[in-house]
């Protein structure tokens, strides 16, 4: 098993995607199927952008096993007040700055779910949000 830990700074759009890039390289080196790599890094990249855009910062823990990759993304708030609403395609609370970066159309969370095999999102206002997802290497 391999474990990687990363920090995400709030508002740091320049580095958003650098974690996904590292994970992509690691999975390529392990000869993981290309479609699994793409689904994983798209989900992770969307998650990175979400933490940068919406939270006070957070961290990512990546665990790569023989048969799957497990990723936990934890932020330090402010939290998602209504997860069901946040999961609705087209719903967004993104700032104009986020929209200028090409995001904030309310597609991120549904797209993360679409690109993952197991998806779990929990949030507590004033505490933070925890997103866990798993992708399996074989169908």
């Amino acid at each position, binding site marked *: 098993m391999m474990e990687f830990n990363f920090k995400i700074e709030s508002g740091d759009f320049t580095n958003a*995607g650098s974690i*996904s890039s590292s994970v992509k390289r690691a999975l390529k080196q392990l000869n993981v199927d290309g479609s699994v790599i793409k689904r994983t890094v798209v989900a992770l990249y969307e998650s990175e952008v979400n933490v940068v855009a919406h939270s006070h910062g957070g961290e990512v823990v990546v665990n790569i096993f023989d048969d799957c990759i497990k990723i936990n993304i934890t932020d330090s708030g402010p939290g998602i007040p209504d997860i069901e609403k946040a999961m609705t395609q087209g719903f967004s609370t993104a700032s104009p700055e986020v929209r200028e970066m*090409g*995001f904030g159309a309310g597609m*991120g969370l549904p797209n993360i779910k*679409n690109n993952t095999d197991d998806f779990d999102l929990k949030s507590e206002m004033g505490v933070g949000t925890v997103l866990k997802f798993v992708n399996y290497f074989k169908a």
Partner: protein
Amino acid sequence: MKISEIAKLIDGEIKSGFDNLDHKFEFAFASDLMSDVLTVKQSNVLLITGLANIQAIRTAEMSDIHCIIVVRNKELNEEMIELAEECDITLIKCKYSMFKTVGILYDTVLKPLY
């Protein structure tokens, strides 16, 4: 269709990925919204966008897109060009509008995604 042929048709200036000029693309997708690009499942796609920032390159990297045409004569900074090189992405600067660029390319063998 080869990158070199595409660049010539749209009078584009190639800024990175010079080793891939013979690479052939089958599909094209045009969007300024990176969230839309990240939903693309098809491979062998080139991206046409007016978004000239580092996230356009990152989005292409995650989506396995190896050619980006940036329209509307947007400046492409060194950071974008370096990251594109690192990710094996050919970056083409095009002075035409999105409408004109897409119009020219639609008339070739390149196919839309849907």
